[in-house]
C-alpha cells in the first residue's frame, strides 16, 4: 500500500508540474508581439480587404484573444468560462488552428499516438542496446570490447541526431532497402488498424528508433558500465568467483541486480532529451508525429496549435518520468518515498 500512496503522491506532483508548465508554455507562446489574428487583420487592412477583417474580428472575440493575457490563459485551460461557457483543455477542447482553419484535435489526430509509439520504441531501444553493451564493457573493461563500445558511445553522444537521421536515412535505404520517410506506407494512411498496417509501421520505425535512441543509449551504457565496475570491485564478487560460479551467472546474479536500479531510474533523466530529439528527428524524417506540426505552428504563430503540441510533449515527458519513478520504488524498496534527491 506504501507504493500506492507513493504513486498517488507522485501523480499529484506531476499534475502540479504540468500546471506550472502550462503557464510557462502559454507565456512563451504569447511572447511574440501580436497574435495570429491581429497580424492577419493588420495585413488585410493594409491590402484593403474589409470582408476578411470582419471575420477575423469575429474569430478574435470567439477565441477571447481580445481579453487580457491571464484571462486568455484561464479560458484556454478551461478554468474560466469563455464566450461559450467552460470549454478549455481540461474539458477536452484543444482549441482552434487559425492556419489550417480546423480544430486542433482534428489536425493532431493520429499523430498523438504515433508520437507516443515512436518515443516508446526509442526507450525500448535504449534499454535493449545499453544493457548488453554496458555489461559487456564492464565485464571486459580495458580491452578492445570496452574501447570499441566507448568509442561508439562517444560518437553517438557527439553526432547531432538530426544528422544521424539524414545519414541513416540515406544508407538505410541504399543498403538495407529500408523505407524512406513517414511512419507507414501512404496506402495505410487514415485506414483502420490492420495487420499489414502494423507491419508497415514496424518497418518504418526502425530508422527513427535507432536515431532517437542512440545518444540516450550511449549515455545509459556509460552509466551502467560505471555502476558495474563499482560493483565488480567488491569482495562478494571475489567470493562468488572463488566458489566457482561461471562468469555469466555471477554477473547476472549479483552485480547486475545492484547496478540495475540507477539504470532504470535514469530513463527519467533521459526522457526530456529523448522527446526533444524525437521532435527534431520527426521533422527531418518527415514522420507523422507532432514534431513537424509544432514547427509549422511555431513558424506561423498559430498559437493554440503550438501551445497544445507543447503541452502534449510536456505531458508525455512528465508521465514517462512519473512511471520511471514509480517503477524504481517498486524495484528498490529502500528508496525513500519523498523523492530521489540525496
Amino acid at each position, binding site marked *: 500500500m506504501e507504493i500506492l500512496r507513493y504513486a498517488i503522491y507522485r501523480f499529484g506532483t506531476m499534475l502540479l508540474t504540468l500546471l506550472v508548465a502550462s503557464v510557462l508554455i502559454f507565456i512563451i507562446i504569447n511572447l511574440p508581439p501580436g497574435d495570429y489574428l491581429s497580424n492577419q487583420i493588420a495585413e488585410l487592412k493594409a491590402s484593403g480587404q474589409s470582408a476578411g477583417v470582419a471575420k477575423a474580428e469575429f474569430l478574435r472575440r470567439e477565441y477571447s484573444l481580445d481579453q487580457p493575457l491571464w484571462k486568455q490563459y484561464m479560458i484556454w485551460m478551461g478554468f474560466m468560462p469563455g464566450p461559450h461557457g467552460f470549454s478549455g483543455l481540461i474539458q477536452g477542447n484543444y482549441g482552434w488552428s487559425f492556419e489550417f482553419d480546423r480544430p486542433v484535435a482534428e489536425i493532431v489526430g493520429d499523430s498523438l499516438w504515433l508520437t507516443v509509439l515512436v518515443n516508446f520504441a526509442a526507450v525500448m531501444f535504449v534499454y535493449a542496446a545499453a544493457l548488453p553493451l554496458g555489461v559487456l564493457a564492464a565485464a571486459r573493461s580495458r580491452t578492445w570490447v570496452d574501447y570499441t563500445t566507448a568509442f561508439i558511445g562517444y560518437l553517438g553522444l*557527439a553526432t*547531432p541526431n538530426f544528422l544521424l537521421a539524414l545519414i541513416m536515412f540515406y544508407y538505410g535505404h541504399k543498403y538495407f532497402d529500408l523505407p524512406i520517410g513517414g511512419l507507414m506506407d501512404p496506402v495505410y494512411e487514415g485506414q483502420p488498424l490492420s495487420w499489414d498496417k502494423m507491419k508497415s509501421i514496424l518497418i518504418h520505425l526502425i530508422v527513427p528508433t535507432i536515431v532517437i535512441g542512440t545518444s540516450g543509449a550511449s549515455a545509459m551504457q556509460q552509466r551502467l558500465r560505471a555502476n558495474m565496475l563499482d560493483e565488480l570491485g567488491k569482495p562478494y564478487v571475489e567470493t562468488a568467483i572463488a566458489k566457482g560460479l561461471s562468469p555469466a551467472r555471477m554477473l547476472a546474479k549479483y552485480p547486475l541486480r545492484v547496478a540495475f536500479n540507477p539504470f532504470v531510474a535514469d530513463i527519467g533523466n533521459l526522457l526530456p532529451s529523448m522527446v526533444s530529439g524525437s*521532435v527534431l528527428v520527426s521533422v527531418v524524417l518527415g514522420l507523422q508525429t507532432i514534431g513537424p506540426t509544432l514547427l509549422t505552428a*511555431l513558424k506561423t504563430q498559430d498559437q493554440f496549435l503550438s501551445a497544445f503540441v507543447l503541452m502534449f510533449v510536456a505531458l508525455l515527458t*512528465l508521465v514517462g518520468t512519473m512511471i520511471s519513478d514509480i517503477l524504481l520504488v517498486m524495484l528498490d524498496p529502500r528508496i525513500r518515498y519523498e523523492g530521489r534527491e540525496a
Partner: protein
Amino acid sequence: MRQLPDGRFVDEAPYDPQASIQTLERRDLDAPNWVLIWRKFKTHRLGLVSGIFLLTAYLLLPFVGFFAPYTANERDEERLYAPPQAIHWFHEGEFVGPFVYPTTAEADLETFQWKFVPDTTRPMPLEFFCRAGSYRLAGLIETDMHLFCAPEGATIFILGSDRLGRDVFSRILYGAQLSLTVGLIGIAVSFSLGILLGSIAGYFGGTTDWIINRVIEILRSLPELPLWLALSAAVPSNWGPVAVFFIISIILGILDWPGLARSVRAKFLALREEEYVRAAEMMGATSGRVIRKHLLPNFMSHLIASATLSIPAMILGETALSFLGLGLRAPAVSWGVMLNDAQNLASIEIYPWTAIPMIPIIIVVLAFNFLGDGLRDSLDPYEH
C-alpha cells in the same frame, strides 16, 4: 660525528626539534592546487590533446579570414554545387608544388546537372600570401591578405561549393566563429544563473530553497528543444544578425542552468555546516562574502568541469535551431545555417559535400567531452 672524551658519540649538526615536523611527507604533493591538477591532467592524453585543439581553435577564431581562401559570402556564379577539388603536388610525375587544375562547367544533358571537368593539362600553382576578397582581421583591421588563394582563372574549392557557389571550406572557418562562441555565451548565462540560484537555495534553505528547487525540477522535466524552438520563434524577424546571435545564445543558456544549480545546491548543503563557514559568519562576514570567498572557491573547479561538459549541448542546440531555420539566419554563417542546405535527401545524395559541416561539429563536441572528462578526473589530485 665527533667522539667526546668520555667515549660518547655526538652529532655535530645543530639539532632542530621541529625538523621532523617540517619535512614534507610527500614532496610531490607540495604545490598549489592548480599545479597538482595540471600535473594529473597532463597524464590524461585524450583530454590534453582535446584541450590543446580547442585552445588553438578558439585562439585562431579572430583570424579565420586569413586562412580562408574566400570570404564568407563571396559567390562564384559559374560554379554552383562544384564538387571538392583536390590539391595536387605532382604533374605528370614532376614535382610542381601545390597546384590545382582549372575546371570548366559543362552541362550534362542526361542528368541535367552541371559537370565540372578539370583541365589536367594546365597545372596552376596556388598563390601564397596573396590578395583576394577583403575582410576584417579580428573584426578590426581591414585587409585582403590570405594565406593561400586560387590562381587567376582557377578556383580552389577544397570542400566544394554550395547552392550559391560559395566555398564550403571558407564558410566552415567563418561558421566556427559563431558556432563556437554561441556555446561560450550560453554557458556564461547558464553558469551565472546556476551559481546564483543554486547558492541562494543551498545557503539560505527554507522557503527560498523549496521554491528554487521546484523550479529546477520543473525545468529539468520539460523537453528542452521544443521550448528552445518556441522561444526562438518569438525572436522578431527584423532583428539584425548580431542581435539574433546574442538572443539565441541567451535562450540556450536560460534553459540549461537547472542542472548546474542542482549540483551547486547539493554542494552548499554539504558545506554550509562546516566550521570555517560558522567562523566566518561569527566574524561578521555577510552572506554574500561567505558564499563568494569561502564556499564557491571550494568547488569552482568542479563547476568548470561540468560547464565544459555542457558546452556541447549548446553547440548542438544552436546547430539544431539553425538547421530548422529558427536559429541564426542567412547572412550570418554558422555550421547549423550551412547544414540547412543539406536538409533534404536529394542534396545528401547528389551533393554530399554540403553535409561536410557536420564533421567539425562532431570533432568539436567530442573534444569538449574528452576535455571535460579529463578535467573531472584530475580535479582530485590527492586521490589515487
